[in-house]
């Protein structure tokens, strides 16, 4: 049986010469958000990162706050234990469970994700990722109508009309503007920002909105109506101006002006956020946007891209898909993969009190999930892997403190546009990696199952 390669074997030395006990690693990768900036020069001094050149405010917080801490690598019911004891307890919980769930995975390497899906297969569990409460609805929309998209370099080299819809990258993806979408001087937009028109659509006048040339402050929860208005205009259908104003809070004439610009653009881009996926309408909001972008390709080139949040959430989608055929919310209790969002997704299996054990990797449902889901999770045995102390690790039956991917461990991550990028660790950790812990659990559950 094929097991994931140990990232360790594939470690690239990124060290670029040391002096006075400091090491500089060039073109290191920040895995905090979906931008996955791989141009960070980090300076390490006795296992602390003292400088992270080109990192944004989120990236600096990421690099400066993941130093080796002295918490125990494993806690069982809050008491320090050896990793081996933790692995044994974890394996027993998972193999005894009748409806175990494996969840999270968006902040770890794809090498670790591959092992986690293998565990789910062996125990007949349900594997889900944070995608289901992020852009899962966009993934469902993709399954209904498809998606026209591209890598971020295409946006940088060609994009002349950039629309940010229902997201606030200025705060959630701070370098997206400068690195990919607005500022870069690209092959067909040599003057960078001057050659691009930036449009914002949101219900709040956010930092992002203020960086736009045009801003459409729509009525809350009217994204679908706004997108439908644009689809109608793209097709040249006459629609009632009063209803448009009423539905969207924006004059029809402004939507018409936007459509003129969209058709005149050479390469249009819509980057959309969770304002669509988390608001009433959810996947059908995303579907409306993907349909609009497809429609636009009858007139010019147009692409869409969901702004993915976590450093390797895109890798989680890819790994779960290539191993099971489905991107998230995959149930294997019958011995083969099944997919059905709303049935096998974690918010549901917890809120409906179906799950009887959980393996949580690099995620914090105890902070982010609905109240009913959190209450049920608290009542079942679960295992948590995280470099940090979180509400989830604090209530875990078995909590592993793991090394931080990209800072302590090498491996592969996938940027929001599916581009795979390799990680160069800065310094070793006293804690095991997610890959190591999960591999040990996989070996043990395989033994217990046979």
């Amino acid at each position: 049986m094929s097991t994931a390669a140990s990232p360790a074997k594939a470690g690239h030395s990124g060290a670029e010469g040391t002096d006075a006990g400091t090491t500089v690693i060039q073109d290191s990768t920040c895995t905090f958000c979906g931008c996955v900036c791989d141009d960070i020069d980090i300076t390490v001094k006795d296992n602390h990162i003292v400088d992270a050149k080109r990192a944004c405010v989120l990236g600096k917080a990421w690099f400066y706050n993941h130093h080796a801490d002295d918490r125990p690598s494993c806690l069982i019911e809050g008491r320090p234990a050896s990793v081996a004891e933790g692995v044994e307890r974890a394996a027993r919980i998972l193999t005894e469970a009748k409806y175990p769930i494996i969840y999270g995975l968006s902040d770890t390497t794809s090498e670790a994700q591959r092992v986690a899906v293998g565990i789910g297969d062996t125990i007949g569990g349900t594997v889900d990722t944070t995608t289901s409460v992020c852009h899962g609805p966009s993934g469902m929309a993709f399954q209904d109508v498809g998606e026209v998209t591209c890598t971020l370099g295409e946006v940088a080299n060609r994009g002349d009309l950039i629309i940010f819809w229902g997201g606030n990258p200025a705060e959630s993806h701070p370098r997206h503007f400068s690195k990919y979408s607005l500022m870069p001087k690209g092959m067909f937009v040599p003057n960078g920002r001057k050659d691009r028109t930036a449009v914002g659509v949101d219900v709040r006048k956010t930092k992002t909105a203020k960086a736009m040339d045009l801003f459409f402050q729509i009525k809350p929860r009217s994204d679908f109506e706004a997108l439908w208005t644009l689809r109608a205009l793209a097709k040249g259908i006459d629609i009632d101006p009063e209803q448009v104003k009423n539905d969207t809070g924006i004059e029809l004439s402004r939507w018409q002006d936007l459509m003129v610009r969209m058709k005149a653009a050479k390469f249009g881009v819509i980057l959309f956020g969770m304002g669509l996926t988390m608001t009433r309408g959810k996947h059908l909001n995303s579907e409306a946007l993907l349909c609009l972008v497809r429609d636009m390709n009858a007139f010019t080139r147009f692409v869409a891209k969901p702004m993915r949040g976590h450093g390797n959430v895109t890798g989680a989608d890819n790994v779960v898909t290539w191993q099971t055929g489905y991107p998230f919310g995959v149930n294997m209790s019958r011995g083969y993969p099944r997919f059905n969002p709303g049935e096998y997704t974690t918010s549901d299996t917890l809120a409906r009190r179906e799950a009887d054990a959980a393996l949580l990797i690099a995620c914090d449902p105890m902070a982010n999930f609905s109240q009913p889901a959190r209450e049920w999770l608290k009542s079942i045995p679960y295992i948590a892997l995280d470099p940090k102390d979180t509400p989830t690790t604090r209530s875990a039956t078995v909590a592993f403190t793991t090394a931080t991917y990209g800072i302590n461990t090498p491996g592969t991550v996938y940027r929001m546009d599916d581009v795979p990028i390799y990680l160069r660790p800065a310094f070793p950790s006293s804690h095991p990696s997610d890959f190591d812990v999960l591999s040990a659990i996989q070996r043990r559950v395989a033994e217990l199952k046979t």
Partner: protein
Amino acid sequence: MSERFILIPGRTSKQGCGVSEGKFDDGYQNEINTLQVAPADMKRMGLANGDRVRVTTESGRQIDVAVTAATGDELPPGLLFIAYGDLSSRLMDGETHGSGMPTSKGFDVTMEKLG
């Protein structure tokens, strides 16, 4: 007396930094435990920064939280904002409408000033 609002939880860079700095540190805790209110709404409801309010959803979920005036015109009147975290989660229902995604933005809520 209570008024109707629409509440939007979301990411902020402070909350994002807090995730790395530590979720039990003050920076993160302050960020996720503060409700942003449009200045006009603050004025009308006689609210000052730091005052506490009670927010209740249609399904009866409830939090008590301190308010602060949203900067400039970031929030239109009638809209509330809070950074993702424990409090915003307390207001979420388990229902995902067959999508896997609980409605997590754009809650209909009522807000009343506390004593």
